[in-house]
């Protein structure tokens, strides 16, 4: 039974992506979509429907799947690593750091690509500072690491607030607000192409180390007894998860709840073993995000911020999950 779950999840993801690609304010009939795909294979100049499909809608669906998969994988890895079900990918301040990078870019009036790059760099730099700080204080202590993450994350949030005060209230402040609420409205094919390699490079170590990460969730001493050294492994997982999260946040803005909630949903389906949890989280996360983003762009003519939607869906779902899993094993 459990072996078939990932297959079913993958099928579900494909189905949701196909449906999502068929929904949008620019009406395109299903047959026309099929025709466009076939014509596209022949190349040539794009008409309006093809432009909508290949320049706007499909990149957006792919970006949503990528961001959902990335945040969920990072969340699952962190929850196993910290042996704590309430951990989300931004526990070490990666979102706040990326947010600070982005709003700084907006304040300086940089191009969109430069803003994304600053967000990415801000996320990585913040976690690097946290890790260095924790090591300097008390190497290897998980609690110190988490506390350092909270402190540095709070500093980054304060810096974001400062930038908001300095920003032009008519011009830059709305842009900052929208970025911090998360959105995939402006995603281009180039964005997807730029982010994909980083997410893959970040996912690879998690996939390769999935057994060891699973052992680590038993506790450091047990892991050592089984021949797994906690320190280097933990550093590798944090590096990989940070890379994934920072690249996702750079393209989508700050989107909460996904990395916290999706691993719980996946755990209900496949249990707490990390080697099963990781692929299930990736698939569920991608599916969830594609669905959420489809809602974000089709509930009204204007965009509903993605971060607002994920929080609205995520909060109650999380409570429901907690109620259901009371008698089950948390990781």
């Amino acid at each position, binding site marked *: 039974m459990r072996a078939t779950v990932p297959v079913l999840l993958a099928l579900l993801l494909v189905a949701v992506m196909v449906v999502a690609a068929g929904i949008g304010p620019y009406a395109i009939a299903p047959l026309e979509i099929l025709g466009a795909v076939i014509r596209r294979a022949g190349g040539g100049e794009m*008409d309006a429907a093809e*432009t909508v499909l290949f320049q706007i*809608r499909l990149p957006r669906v792919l970006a949503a799947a990528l961001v959902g998969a990335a945040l969920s994988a990072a969340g699952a890895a962190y929850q196993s690593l910290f042996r704590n079900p309430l951990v989300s990918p931004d526990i070490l301040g990666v979102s706040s750091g990326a947010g600070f990078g982005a709003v700084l870019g907006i304040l300086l009036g940089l191009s*969109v690509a430069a803003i994304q790059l600053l967000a990415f760099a801000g996320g990585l730099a913040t976690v690097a500072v946290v890790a260095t700080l924790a090591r300097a204080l008390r190497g290897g202590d998980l609690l110190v690491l988490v506390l350092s993450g909270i402190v540095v994350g709070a500093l980054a949030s304060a810096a974001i607030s400062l930038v908001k005060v300095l920003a032009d209230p008519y011009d830059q402040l709305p842009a900052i607000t929208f970025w911090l609420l998360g959105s995939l409205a402006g995603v*281009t094919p180039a964005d997807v192409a730029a982010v994909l390699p980083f997410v893959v490079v970040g996912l690879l170590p998690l996939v390769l180390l999935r057994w060891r990460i699973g052992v680590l969730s038993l506790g450091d001493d047990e892991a050592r007894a089984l021949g797994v050294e906690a320190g280097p492994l933990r550093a590798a997982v944090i590096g990989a998860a940070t890379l994934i999260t920072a690249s996702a946040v750079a393209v989508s803005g700050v989107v909460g709840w996904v990395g916290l909630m999706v691993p719980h949903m996946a755990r209900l389906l496949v249990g707490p073993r990390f080697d099963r949890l990781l692929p299930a989280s990736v698939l569920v996360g991608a599916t969830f995000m594609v669905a959420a983003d489809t809602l974000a762009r089709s509930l009204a003519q*204007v965009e509903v911020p993605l971060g607002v939607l994920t929080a609205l869906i995520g909060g109650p779902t999380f409570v429901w999950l907690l109620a259901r899993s009371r008698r089950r094993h948390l990781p």
Partner: protein
Amino acid sequence: MIGRNRCRVLCAVIGLLVVALPATGSAREIADSAGRPVEVPDRISRVFAAGPPAAVLVYMLAPETMIGWPRAPREAASPFLVPSARALPELGRLTGRGDTLGFERLMAAEPDIVVDFGSVGETYRSLADRVTAQTGIPYLLVDGRFDAIPQSLRLAGDVLGVGERGEALAEAAQAIFDRVDRTVATVPDEDRPRVYLARGREGLETGTRGSINTEIIERVGGVNVAEGLREKGGIVQVSPEQVIAWAPDTIIALDRDFTREVGDRPAWRPVPAVRSGRVFTAPALPFSFVDFPPSLNRLVGMIWLLHVLYPDRMPDDLGEQVGAFYTLFYQVDLSDADIDRLLGGG
């Protein structure tokens, strides 16, 4: 006895009043747009504008009284301002929450009066009352609604001691409104331009119908394609696909980088306005013609929009009219080169 005493007291009171009159006589009481009584000093030489919209109002009426900008204009705006206003310091804004100016700083700047231009709702009334109660500085609220501009110019002109200039500007503003009404009346509903306001570098922020950001577009008869969730409208984010579905025939952009790049962006190619090259950057010197700050700077924006939206109905020269507006309202004389630079989106 008693009667004589009473008379004495009365006389003393009258005498005191007569003595005190010159002191209170240096101020008069004027009702502001919110109906609040404001003690206005007779001579006003230092005015603090509470926010960017008020700064435009005060600059137009009496630039020599300004003691600073809530936000300093950009370097490029300098040649379009009178010399005394160019180097004024940035003092911060005073708009309720998120102030960047403390009351103590406000007092240190020693303004004779604070002028705010915009909403006269309860929030701003109570803020104005609090500022006056705490600092003793009179605080004038001026109605910032678009159609109230002529009255607002008269009120503020009167308070600032430049009543004649206020009257002249009010008449000129009314003439612009009349011109807009006359022109729009000749355009049948089905010929109204469908306009999208593109904010930001990506052009994916816009003001929905009824928002203060697109008020000017709607006032000159353009149909704002962006329909929002609320009647009142506001700034929202939209996707390129939605813009294609709205199919605007004209795009008014605020960022000239957007205008320059939009033709090269595949996602925007199906938009009619992009295909026909009808993407225009709103001039922004010294203040933007459209959108922000939502103040009197939009008067010249209406002249510009009439030419952009109805080129066939506007036989006269846009540059000439803009030049005349700058001479009257901004008190700067523009050369032809300045006007070209201004209208070229500089």
